[in-house]
Each structure stands twice: as structure tokens, then as C-alpha cells.
């Protein structure tokens, strides 16, 4: 239809058209990657931790007197915490997801070989850790009372070399035994085997790890015996604040010679842990919106100046029979052509940027479906931005043709 006159008109503004295409290409390339990074962050932030997050509260205790027996202290504390009205269960643990206290150990499937080894976060705690955290046991059983051993922190966690059973996450089970028959198999933290007696659905690690390894966790029946310990309590969501206050008072009353600190709900812990990702998502969103705005300004601005420049030509076209719709479509088609040129360039740029990001920031490969979505968004943006000037152009009366400029 009217492609030929449009193209020949555009070739007379090569530089301007090229600049606008470059702008659309840059925007397309950046916005595709920004959108992908936003999706990635949100996926990371919303991954399940495995914990009953709305019902769990925690509080840290640091023993000051080196002569107190930590295990006796924990036993007495846990009993007192369980007696608080509203507390369903309580345990002493060395770490919980997102608290940063990360003990990572290599777990082998053979006694003296690294074949199939996985590096996993080790969780230790007093009996009842599964119920208190609300972990979902999908196969096997919890630890039996007779299986618990002290961690032996005086000998740098030597208990890990003596323990005979372990509960792992599904992700870790699949990594160690890809055939899917992990239950009943043995893993080797050191040279002693520990049999996998249970598998839990999810349990996030205390600190950040590579993508795909975020759920590699193992629970051992080891009793914490360090001066510093975390007490975890499970209660109804509405009682959380109240229970934390009483727990703090209870611990101080039982033994004043300690530091009770960081009482928090699990929800707070998660919010603090992911605050950087939230900031980043906000910034990425702002950048995408700002880029779209700047590009819309460029498209609308260019169309605006061109309408001004072509008033006389438009008038002549109207005078010799073009309808308003023809003029409107002319500008819309022209815009579509320019944006299309930019989008083709932009999709190449998006993939190049993604390659650079993959090298520098361990970002995964940009999924292909981002490209058509990115193109569609820019076409839509272009059409919206050009609509105002195009309507103004369509409103130019034919009589302009008879006036001199």
C-alpha cells in the first residue's frame, strides 16, 4: 500500500531514523534483560524454605560462664520454653534457614571417594526439630531418641564423624542418588557411614549458595553443645510477639549470666535476608519504567517535529483526496517500520547483553520467550507514543496547502 512513499521519505532522514532505531534497540536489549533479572530475583525470594514460616519464632542465647554445661542448659531452657502457654513445641538448634550460621560439609556416597559428592549445609538440633520447624517429611521417619549424640564442639564438631543416621532434603537426595533410591542408602560426612532414614520436601540453607544448590541441606541427630545456641518455638501466628516476649523473660530468669538476643519471627528473618533482592527488584523495575519513558519521549518528540515539518505536505495530500485515516495510518506505519528496525537490532543486543551477564554475574541464559514479549512491548509503546502527534497530523486541514509557509 503506502510503504513505498514512507520508505523513500525515511531515507531522506537517515541519521534521525538511525538514532531512533538505536534508541529502540538499546531499550529493547536492556529491558529484556532487566525483566529477566526481575523474574529471577522474585523466583529466588519466593522459593519455599520448607519451614512453617508463619508459626515459627526464634531467639538466640549466648552463655557467658564457661563452666556451665551447655547441654544441661539447653535441656532446662527447652523444657521451660515448651511450658509457655501457646508454645506447641520448642527445640535448641545451631542454625535455621536464612540466619547466616552456615556449616557446610561435603557428603560422599562412597567411603573414600569424591564421586557424587555434594556440599550440603548441616543442621543440628535437639529432638523435635522437624515438628518445630514444620518440615514436611515425604519419606521415611524422624530420628529415634537413641540416635542422638552430642555435637562435641569442644573437639570441633567431631560428633559428625560418629553419627549413624541423617535426614536429607529431596533436592540433596536426588543429587546424591540420581536414581531416586536414596532412602536407606548411606552417606559419608567423614569415614563413618550415616544412613538416610528420612527425606524432607524442602529446607533452605542458612546462607546464599549457587543456583540449584540452595536446598542442599542435611539434618543430623546431633545435640548442640556450644555456648551460643538458637531456640526455635512453634506457636499460632497471632501469638508470635507475645511468645517472644515471654521467652526472653523466661531465659533471663533461668540464667541471668547470658546474653539473650535477636528475638525475631521467622517472617522477619526472611524479610531481612532478602532485603537486597527486594531493593534490586525495585531498582530494576524503576530502570525499566524510566527507559520506556525516555523512549516514548523520543518517539513522540520526533513525530511531533516531523508533523511540524510536514504540515504543508500533509495539507497537499489532504487537498488531493487523502482522508484523515490515511494520514493517521501513514504516521502509525512509519513508526511501526522504525520500531521494527530497532527491535530486530534490540533482540540481537538482548542476547549479547545476556552473554556478558552470564559471564560476569552468573545469570542464566535468557529464555527465548522474552524476545517476542520484548518486541511486542516496544511496538505497543511506539504506537502509543506516536498516537498524539499522528492525531494532530490528521487534524491538519487541506487548506494549509494553499497557504505559503
Amino acid at each position, binding site marked *: 500500500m503506502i510503504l513505498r512513499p514512507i520508505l523513500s521519505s525515511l531515507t531522506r532522514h537517515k541519521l534521525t531514523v538511525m538514532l531512533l532505531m538505536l534508541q529502540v534497540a*538499546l531499550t529493547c536489549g*536492556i529491558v529484556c534483560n532487566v525483566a529477566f533479572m526481575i523474574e529471577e530475583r522474585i523466583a529466588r525470594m519466593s522459593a519455599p524454605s520448607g519451614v512453617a514460616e508463619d508459626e515459627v519464632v526464634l531467639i538466640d542465647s549466648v552463655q557467658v560462664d564457661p563452666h556451665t554445661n551447655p547441654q544441661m542448659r539447653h535441656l532446662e531452657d527447652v523444657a521451660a520454653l515448651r511450658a509457655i502457654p501457646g508454645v506447641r513445641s520448642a527445640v535448641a538448634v545451631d542454625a535455621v534457614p536464612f540466619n547466616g550460621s552456615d556449616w557446610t560439609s561435603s557428603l560422599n556416597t562412597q567411603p573414600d571417594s569424591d564421586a557424587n559428592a555434594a*556440599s550440603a549445609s548441616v543442621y543440628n538440633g535437639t529432638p523435635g526439630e522437624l515438628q518445630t520447624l514444620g518440615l514436611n517429611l515425604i519419606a521415611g521417619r524422624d530420628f529415634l531418641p537413641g540416635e542422638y549424640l552430642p555435637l562435641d564442639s569442644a573437639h570441633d564438631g567431631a560428633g559428625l564423624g560418629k553419627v549413624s543416621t541423617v535426614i536429607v532434603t529431596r533436592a540433596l537426595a536426588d543429587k546424591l542418588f540420581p536414581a531416586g533410591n536414596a532412602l536407606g542408602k548411606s552417606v559419608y560426612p567423614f569415614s563413618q557411614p550415616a544412613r538416610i532414614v528420612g527425606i524432607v520436601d524442602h529446607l533452605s540453607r542458612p546462607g546464599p549458595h549457587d543456583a540449584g544448590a540452595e536446598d542442599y541441606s542435611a539434618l543430623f541427630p546431633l545435640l548442640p553443645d556450644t555456648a551460643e545456641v538458637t531456640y526455635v518455638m512453634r506457636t499460632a501466628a497471632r501469638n508470635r510477639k507475645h511468645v517472644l516476649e515471654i521467652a526472653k523473660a523466661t531465659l533471663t530468669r533461668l540464667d541471668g549470666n547470658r546474653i539473650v538476643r535477636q528475638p525475631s519471627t521467622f517472617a522477619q528473618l526472611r524479610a531481612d535476608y532478602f532485603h537486597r533482592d527486594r531493593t534490586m527488584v525495585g531498582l530494576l523495575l524503576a530502570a525499566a519504567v524510566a527507559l520506556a519513558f525516555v523512549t516514548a519521549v523520543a518517539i513522540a518528540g*520526533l513525530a511531533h*517535529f516531523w508533523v*511540524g515539518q510536514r504540515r504543508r505536505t500533509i495539507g497537499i495530500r489532504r487537498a488531493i483526496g487523502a482522508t484523515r485515516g490515511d494520514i493517521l495510518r501513514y504516521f502509525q506505519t512509519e513508526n511501526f517500520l522504525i520500531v521494527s528496525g530497532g527491535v530486530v537490532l534490540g533482540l540481537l543486543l538482548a542476547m549479547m547483553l545476556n552473554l556478558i551477564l552470564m559471564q560476569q554475574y552468573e545469570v542464566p541464559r535468557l529464555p527465548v520467550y522474552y524476545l517476542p514479549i520484548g518486541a511486542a512491548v516496544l511496538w505497543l509503546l511506539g504506537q502509543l507514543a506516536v498516537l498524539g502527534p499522528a492525531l494532530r497530523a490528521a487534524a491538519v486541514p487541506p487548506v494549509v496547502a494553499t497557504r505559503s509557509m
Partner: protein
Amino acid sequence: MFAYYLDLALRSLRRNKVFTVLMVVCVGLGIGASMTMITVVHVMSDDPLPERSGQLYYPHIDPWPAPHGRSTNPHASDNLTLPDAMNLLRAGRAPGQAAMSGAAISIHSEQPNAQPLLETGHYVTADFFSMFGVPFRAGGGWTHADDERHARVIALSSALNRMLFGDSPGIGRTVRVGDEDFRVIGVLDDWHPQPMFYADVNGRAFGRSDAFFLPLQTALDLKLDFRGSLSCHGDGGDDRTTDRCTWLQFWVKLENPKQVSAYMQFLADYWRQQQAHGRFPQSVDPKLYRLMDWLAYKNVVPGDVRLQLWLALGFLGVCMVDIVGLLLAKFLRRSNEISVRRALGARRGQVFLQFGIESAVIGVLGGVLGLAIAELGLWSVRQRPDGYAQLASMDVSMLMGTFLLAIGGSVLAGLLPAWRACRIAPAIQLKAH
């Protein structure tokens, strides 16, 4: 002439108020976002010890049996094992050397019924204070002899001193840590190098400060609590005293290139000598990082912040392309006016100057807006709970930089359109009308 062109520029800008405002907003957003992030990265990459950093080095010997367990944590072996740190310390081949580790102690307050305090600081060896030029309000550090006999001495930050002893330095008084008495021998002046380069800087390098320093060997002797990462390989528990666990930081002071190369030679010899004892299975490859290189190697500027910087610069680039395009379209629309001026005798240079000034006006206005946006951006960075948040503010040089970037950027953006405008031939345009 200049005033006349300025007047012409302002008239032209007033004619298209909406697009003038939009162009200024685009320049402002681009400049504001970039300056915010450039400032953040600038303060984060600052030298924590400007007078001394050129002479401070971090030696690195990798005791890991080749690739085992390294893939998930490439920095697992950046620290030293206790035997290696002690060997380097006792060899004393540099004019100054110190080993150190993060520390946490609980301190009994002398106030009756007061809760004990949990404080974080560092366990260090004697040269730490002289090597880093730690300023003291009263007293000082300890000696090598104190290190060797595991002396019960402690140096306090002025904040902790105030909390324990009030305003006067508590030199000679005792602090009870666990069930041992430590004698206060020094109270520091304010000393908060940012980033805290000497700490185990994985992840958190900013916004920390130490409340106390006490001798490393004493802490090992009393089995006090250590902080920071402990990475072990092989079997048999995670014992801090073995040669399989890396956890100590080590710094040396080397005053000239000769000392540096001599120390490199010493490290290589040490590596070979240990290989003879069956240790260090990897091929001999000691490293000696200068302080600023060490911080770069450890990525103290977090990946997220670097990504934000690139994003802001990319955005500025798009804004600049935007301005070039808009100015070009705007100037070319005035081809008639230009050709008339040219026909009346205006030289190309004059046309170029006229349009250059119009671009610069946009640049100045955009720069002012960009400065306001950058201040707003930095304010929002300061609201982040990260350790580096408090550092994020502009100094005079950054302020000047913002302005130069804004004006330089827009003048540069105006160059192409102004050049294109001044190439318009007088005759053809006149003939057309």
C-alpha cells in the same frame, strides 16, 4: 554575540515548552541515576588507609589439595591455616607482619545487675597496631613477648571504653572475659577504616567496626570464640589448630620493590619446603596482593552494586541517544530559518555556535535536575540497611563531576545536530519556498 545566541536558544526552547521540559527530564534522569551509582561505587572503592596502603600486602599460599570442594567457594583457601600463619610470623622476613581473625567475646560489666555485653572485635598479633598506624587515645598495643607468653591484655575502642569506664581511658583496669581477667593497655582513637580490609571480607566489608583487640595466641590458648569463615578439607573434624583448616588473615608490610621480590622468593621457598613434608600438593604459585588489589580480588564492591552502576550508565547512554535524536529533529525542522540566516551572511561557525548553545542550555538545566535527582538517589541509598549505606554521600569532586558530565554530555549530544544544521546550504532551502 553569545548573549544573542543565548536569547535565541531560550526563545526556541520556549516555543516547545513540553518537549524542552521532557528533554531536560531525560538528561536529568540519566545524569541523576549515573551520578548516584558512580558516587556509591566511588566511595566503596576508596582507599581505606591512603597513607599506608602502598606498603601493605596480603600473602596467599593455597594449601588445598587441587580441585577438591573448591568449585562452590572459590575463596575457600584465601585465608591461612594456623601452622602456616605462625611459620610466616616467626620467620619475620618482612619489616612488619601480623596474623588476625574475627572475634566475639562476652564481657562482664562491673555495674551490678547489668547484663553481660557481647562484643565483636579482632584477635591480632603485635605488629597489627604499628603496621596499620592504629591511633591510640591512651596507652598502646602489646609486644612480641606478650604474644609469646599469651598475655592477658586487651585494647578497647573508645566506644567500648566509654561504656565500661566512662569518659576517662580505663588503662590498667581489668575487663572480665569468660572467667579470665584482661588488663586494659590501650584505648583507641576513632579508627574505622572502610572497607574493613583486614577482616575476612567475604560478603560484609562495610559498616563494621571493632570494639576490642586482644592477642591471637591468648585467644587460642583460652579457646575464645572466633568469627568468620572456617574452611577445612579432608577428614577428622574442623579443628582450628590443624593444617587442614584455613581461617586466619595475614598482612605484611613491605617498603620497597626489593623487599617485595625478596618476600615473594621467601614464600616460594616456603611452599617448596612444605612440599618436602608432603603438604601443598598444588604447584608452587604464591601470591602477594597489594592492599587495593586484594580488595578488588575479594570483590568488596558487591555484584549487585556493580550491576546497578552498569544499569545506570546504560540508561544514561539511552538518554543521550534520545537527546541527540530529538535535537537533530528539532534543528532540522528549522532548516528554513537556518538557510535564511545563511543566505543573509551567517557563517557556518556562527550557526554551529547558535545551536551548540541551545544544546548546552538543555545540558545545564538537565545537570541541575540531575544533581537534585542524584541527591535524592543517594538519600535513598542511605536508607538501605547495608553496611555501605552511610558512606553514600557526595563530596565536592563528585559534585563538580556531575556538572561536567551533564554539560559535557549534552554539548557532545548537541555536536552532531549542530554540525548537521550548519551544513544546510542556503540556496536550496530558499529555492524550495
